[in-house]
């Protein structure tokens, strides 16, 4: 992305040239990365950007083709959340982040594929079918922001926005060999992000390098009065010089290297940590005693909130309405039966149960209490270290439908990414190696709330000393 911006200014290529190239590549996309492509809008924006390129020297987003996950609203463009229930829905408003990108002159190429309502980690639950991993078309790109990750990795956009509720930016970023940031809860407005689990959802940037991620993060972050959970701190631009790792304390949690971690991931992450050690970082073993409950807590809190957030899709005002029902209750049931896929239904059922009379204390309330314990674990850990480091996922990308019949095993794969959503803190996934089959492996860095600068700084330094992020996948538009 930064390279592209430089090339625009040097006159090597115009925004319209690159946009047309990308649109052409998307026409032959074997990855199923996009749900909606806005050719006309993209070309118009590219033309406009081209006219301004000489005047706006300090705007790295101008003319840059970006893709937006399909749960982020764009005015007059279908926002389906990969669900039948919203397949006809066109918002009349821009999400706050989209408004910001448009103002900066970014070229919005289209909306990327995802798991239905961001519930999943493969894009298998999308109503248009799964996306594929550009490193191996037989493998999943991960999810739920799998379309965004695949598109970035394959060059079908220069950068993308995803959303992350339990790892939905970081896991696909690691599977597709790109860099992805789940920002601090409250640092990026959720206005216009179709809610899955409101207390966990966060929009974040996905791109080819930590520098690009930092630039896109700077573009979308900031206080927004339209989101009550948005936090008003004086946001400063992220420095792109990298972080001097001398004396930086890296906390390595035992729990992140236990049972279930595949050997190739373990080795790549250990090697990645060694790179930081070489650069002067201090490695500290830390303990996070309560994160073993993270997955359980997450699947109660997230499903409870989801069961309520998805109640508005009732066929009354917009979206799908099944005809032929005899009465109101039947209309509700037919619409929701037809409109939602199996995973969404499963989570609505789970969440409804967790909130129901007699079970609330046992499930939701208890989960909220354990969530506090997890937060306290991290507060204590950050007393002794600056960054917590470990794998992003226990395995590299798996086969497209390997987990289709085993939701529980799939849930358990989220164990490293979930804690940052429970605490609200920022987390970054960066490529740190490859399996011998050539699949990318990701490493996760976590920091205290609003310390994105440390994470991105460390990521930039790491990438200045390694080349994992520069390798291109087997399938790419170039």
């Amino acid at each position, binding site marked *: 992305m930064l390279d592209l911006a430089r090339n625009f200014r040097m006159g090597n290529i115009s925004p319209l040239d690159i946009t047309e190239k990308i649109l052409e590549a998307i026409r032959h996309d074997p990855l199923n990365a996009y749900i909606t492509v806005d050719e006309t809008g993209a070309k118009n924006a590219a033309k406009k950007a081209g006219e301004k390129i000489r005047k706006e020297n300090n705007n790295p987003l101008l003319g840059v083709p970006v893709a937006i996950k399909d*749960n*982020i*609203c764009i005015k007059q463009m279908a*926002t389906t*959340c990969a669900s039948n229930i*919203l397949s006809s*829905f066109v*918002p*009349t*408003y821009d*999400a706050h982040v989209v408004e910001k990108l448009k103002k900066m002159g970014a070229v919005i190429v289209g909306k990327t594929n995802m798991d239905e309502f961001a519930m999943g980690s493969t894009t298998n639950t999308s109503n248009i079918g799964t996306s594929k991993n550009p490193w191996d078309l037989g493998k999943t790109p991960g999810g739920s922001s799998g379309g965004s990750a695949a598109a970035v990795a394959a060059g079908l956009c220069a950068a993308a926005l995803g959303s992350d509720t339990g790892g939905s930016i970081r896991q696909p970023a690691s599977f597709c060999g790109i860099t992805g940031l789940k920002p601090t809860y409250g640092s990026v407005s*959720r*206005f*216009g*992000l*179709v*809610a899955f*689990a*409101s*207390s966990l959802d966060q929009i974040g940037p996905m791109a080819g390098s930590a520098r690009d991620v930092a630039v896109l993060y700077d573009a979308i972050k900031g206080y927004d*009065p*339209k*989101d*009550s*959970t948005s936090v008003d701190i004086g946001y400063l631009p992220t420095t792109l010089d990298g972080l001097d790792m001398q004396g930086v304390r890296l906390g390595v949690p035992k729990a992140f290297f236990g049972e279930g971690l595949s050997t190739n991931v373990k080795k790549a992450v250990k090697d990645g940590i060694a790179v930081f050690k070489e650069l002067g970082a201090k490695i500290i073993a830390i303990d996070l005693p309560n994160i073993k409950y993270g997955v359980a807590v997450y699947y109660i809190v997230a499903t*409870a*909130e989801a*069961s*309520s957030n*998805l*109640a*508005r899709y*009732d066929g*009354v*005002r*917009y979206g799908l309405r099944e005809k032929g029902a005899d009465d*109101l209750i039947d209309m*509700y049931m037919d619409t929701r039966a037809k409109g939602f896929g199996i995973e969404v239904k499963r989570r609505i059922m789970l969440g*409804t149960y967790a*909130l*129901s*009379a007699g079970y*609330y204390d046992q499930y*939701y309330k208890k989960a909220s209490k354990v969530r506090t314990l997890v937060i306290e674990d991290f507060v204590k850990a950050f007393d002794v270290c600056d960054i917590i480091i470990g794998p992003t996922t226990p395995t590299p990308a798996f086969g497209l439908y390997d987990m289709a019949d085993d939701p529980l095993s799939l849930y358990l794969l989220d164990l490293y990414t979930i804690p940052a959503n429970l605490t609200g803190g920022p987390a970054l996934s960066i490529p740190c190696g490859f399996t011998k089959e050539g699949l990318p492996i990701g490493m996760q860095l976590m920091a205290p709330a609003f310390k994105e600068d440390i994470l991105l700084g460390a990521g930039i330094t790491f990438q200045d000393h390694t080349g994992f992020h520069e390798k291109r996948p087997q399938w790419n538009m170039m």
Partner: protein
Amino acid sequence: MEYDVIIGLEVHAQLLTETKIFCSCPTTFGDEPNTNTCPVCIGMPGILPVLNKKIVDFGIKLGIATHCKIAKTNIFARKNYFYPDLPKGYQITQYESPLCEHGFLDIDTTGGSKRIGITRIHMEEDAGKLIHDLKGHRSFIDFNRAGVPLLEIVSEPDMRSTDEADTYLRELRQLLVYLEICDGNMEQGSFRCDANISVRPKGSTFFGVRTELKNMNSFRNVHRALSYEIKRHIDVLRSGREVTQQTMLWGETANATRSMRTKEESHDYRYFPEPDLVPVMVDNAWIGKIRKTLPEMPRERRKRFEEGYGLPGYDADILTQSRDVADYFEDCVSLLDSPKEISNWIMTEVLRVLKGGTADIKALKVTPRMLTSMIRLIDGGAISGKMAKDVFNEMAETGKSSEEIVKDSGLKQISDEGHLKNLAKTILEDHKKEVGSYKKGKTQLIGFFVGQLMKATKGKANPELTNKIIKEILEE
């Protein structure tokens, strides 16, 4: 067997804020359907609520006025249920920690003053409104009301009769109107009441099985519905059966209550804290700021009107029904120290011409200064009480002063100072006794002398001039 009646009331008061609770749509009643709506209040995907802080102000106001404990940390909750008038599939309300708790409201009953406990007052949003077509084939939804702010005021089950419930309701409504946080209009639904009712054998201390009563949209209906339901409970018990816990609907035309849903059919609302809103912290500074804006409460004012102005209870009651009317009265009294006479004029002529309700008194053409000037004319004998009614009507219509009206209707004013001086001297000589009293300090007799002069001139004398001249002579 005789029975005791136990009544608790739940009141929903729509707040007089200009905009809705979580968006900036207007709260106007009666506009074209779905014109006061936006993506927030119709529950579009990805849209978030932002609290209108004014609602908290209003809640604190009522909380202070009802002697409640105000919560420092306010958490909103979602109440989940499906209904077409509920856009998000949940209502944003407060559940575990309401804004106000443990207060009370004193009411006057036949047995003296009685304290009714206020369990809680919390903030929430209203739902939209379903409109069914006459043939019953189709239903429409008007979302203008969706997101209109409400305070829900829950009383303790402290009322022991329909009359007590009625008095509590009126007292609460008056308080809301006084505080200018609700217009108290039951017919338009800005002040709504549900009741919880049970009966028990006289003298016992346990509670009987209760029913909840809904759909009573006027004071009259509350009275009728409560009476009906109490009798129904007693009849059921007397026949040896048991009351079923259920929600009842009042049917105005049927003049009876009917079952809406039983306990088994009741919703499981799956309350949980609203993650889209952050807790609202209310500190002492906030409460103090609101406390300063509080007007005198109606009950205290009523007492002051009785004791301070010597008004009968009946007058004090009527004059304090509305803060505007009470203010008007006090403005008049500050200009002319004849409280009872002023009260009589307000209770009859003034209230009669306020066709659109007591709030219209602010726009009334007859200002307190004009009304008191007119009363002075009567006191002075310049016009009779009967004539004054016509003068008042003309003032209310035209906005002309009473003096002007009297003059225009052929009564030419005498403003010749010499002439008036001579007349005054004659009158004072004819009333030596009164002059003596005046000089001993009964200065209000000035009105009498002015009146006598007015009488002598058939109201033609310039009242101000006359006043001045007589004063000058008396004080020589």
